[in-house]
């Protein structure tokens, strides 16, 4: 297939599937809390609605960044789709994409001039604690498979079985990132309701539309990467079932867990990350992992 056509199709799939999964996430959370909840299609409708809403700019903003950052956010997750589902390229590129995502989260908050956005920006710096377990998980995947290339990792798993059984604690570290980035997560300190909508508070209209578009693609890409590097070669149906299952698990966790304070959030993430890191190191050096 033509490369451009494949990129376009994969981006559309990522947007639609990500939106529906986020809608499902919200629905499951509501049902766990004994509320009817919105329809599953609601996140998708919200995203499309914002593209046609009037867009305004607060007078306090740093305009170039305030506007530019939303387009950069959308662009980097499109790069994530290209590096992941389309090209099966290096995991380090996806790590880079995630690092830019952190920067965008930071700058969307600070560029508005709003105190809520500013506080969210400072918390985005603190929540950098999730990057270290992510990096450690990627390094462990390399140590076992001998490659950073996603295509080669898939090939390795087709011969040796899914990595989730070989390095389960590394999978837990990666899964913690997914929980952190899921809506209403106990670790979502940048979007704490005490900060209204955190870094998104002052973005509305078309700009919020791009943010919703990116959120949907980001959720799809993170689930895709997790399933691909830990669950071996999967068919389209396998990906669908896996994504629904992870969405269900995260929704259940988020529905039953209160948001943590920033300090507790960081300490919990570092503690879980450290336990999994040293656990995996011990597994590798004691020969449990071949």
């Amino acid at each position, binding site marked *: 297939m033509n490369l451009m056509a494949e990129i376009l199709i994969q981006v559309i799939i990522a947007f639609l599937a990500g939106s529906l999964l986020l809608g499902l996430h919200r629905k499951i959370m509501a049902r766990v809390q004994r509320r009817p909840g919105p329809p599953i299609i609601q996140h998708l409708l919200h995203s499309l609605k914002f593209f046609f809403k009037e867009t305004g700019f607060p007078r306090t903003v*740093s305009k170039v*960044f305030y506007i530019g950052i939303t387009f950069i956010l959308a662009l980097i997750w499109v790069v994530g789709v290209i590096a992941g589902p389309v090209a099966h390229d290096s995991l380090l*590129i996806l*790590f*880079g994409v995630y690092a830019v995502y952190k*920067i965008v989260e930071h700058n969307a908050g600070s560029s508005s001039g709003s*105190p809520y956005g500013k506080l969210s*920006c400072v918390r985005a710096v603190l929540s950098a604690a999730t990057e270290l377990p992510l990096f450690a998980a990627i390094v462990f995947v390399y140590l076992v498979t001998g490659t950073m290339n996603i295509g080669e990792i898939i090939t390795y798993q087709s011969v040796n079985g899914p990595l989730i059984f070989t390095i389960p604690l590394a999978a837990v570290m990666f899964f913690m990132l997914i929980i952190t980035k899921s809506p209403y997560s106990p670790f979502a300190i940048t979007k704490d309701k005490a900060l209204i909508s955190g870094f998104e508070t002052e973005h509305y209209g078309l700009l919020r539309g791009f943010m919703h578009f990116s959120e949907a693609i980001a959720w799809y890409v993170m689930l895709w990467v997790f399933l691909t590097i830990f669950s071996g070669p999967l068919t389209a149906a396998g990906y669908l079932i896996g994504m629904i299952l992870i969405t269900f698990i995260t929704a259940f966790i988020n529905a039953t867990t209160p948001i943590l304070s920033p300090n507790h959030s960081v300490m919990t993430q570092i503690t879980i990350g450290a336990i999994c890191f040293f656990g995996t190191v011990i597994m590798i050096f004691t020969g449990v992992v071949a």
Partner: protein
Amino acid sequence: MDIVTLGGNLLGTIPLGDIVLYLTPFNLFLFAVLLGFTALIAFSKPETQIEAAKFNTLGVAEVKVDEKEFKQRRFLSVICGIASAGAMITGDLFNFTLFMALVGILNIGIVSAVKQTSVLNSAFNYGLIAMMCSLPLFGGAAIILAATGTLSLSVLSQMSASPMVVFGAILMLIGILGESGVAPFFASKAEMFRTPGSPFIVIIHLSSLFIIVRAVEILLLVLW
């Protein structure tokens, strides 16, 4: 470890004697993002930060970046962006440590002109850690040079790691963690982000994160 295994297909090289600059999709992505952000910083003006004026009133205080401070901070931010971009494509271990140290100094410089005590305190604490960590940073690179006879990453990637190289890499990692101010050192740096001047603050965060991402690649190249 092989350069291609880590960063994807080799897009091109610039051989400068022993030192070979190389470009993979991974390096290109980091380099392009940094240059893009640096261009945005050069053309943007800072936001006006809104803060509560005092208790029991609905008044707000507007905190702005004045003209002189704006010019100083923009200049330092652009230099920081360029230095970080250089660190993304350099093929030389010593150049990387130099870019790293330069980024650390510029990060402090970017917030040194502000007049908020908490921000200046934070910059001072970060400065102390950055200074202390410059010793293991450069020391680590020097030990790797002494043990292997080269600083070229493309040559180092083909060598097996001796115990001295592992020791040098561990020292470098400590230096990089302190200089970039990531966990567990971010506690000293987070308060720096409270100051107005969003375009300048973003480059502090961006340069630190990207240098860590590049450091991961470099350490894997040297060690495996």
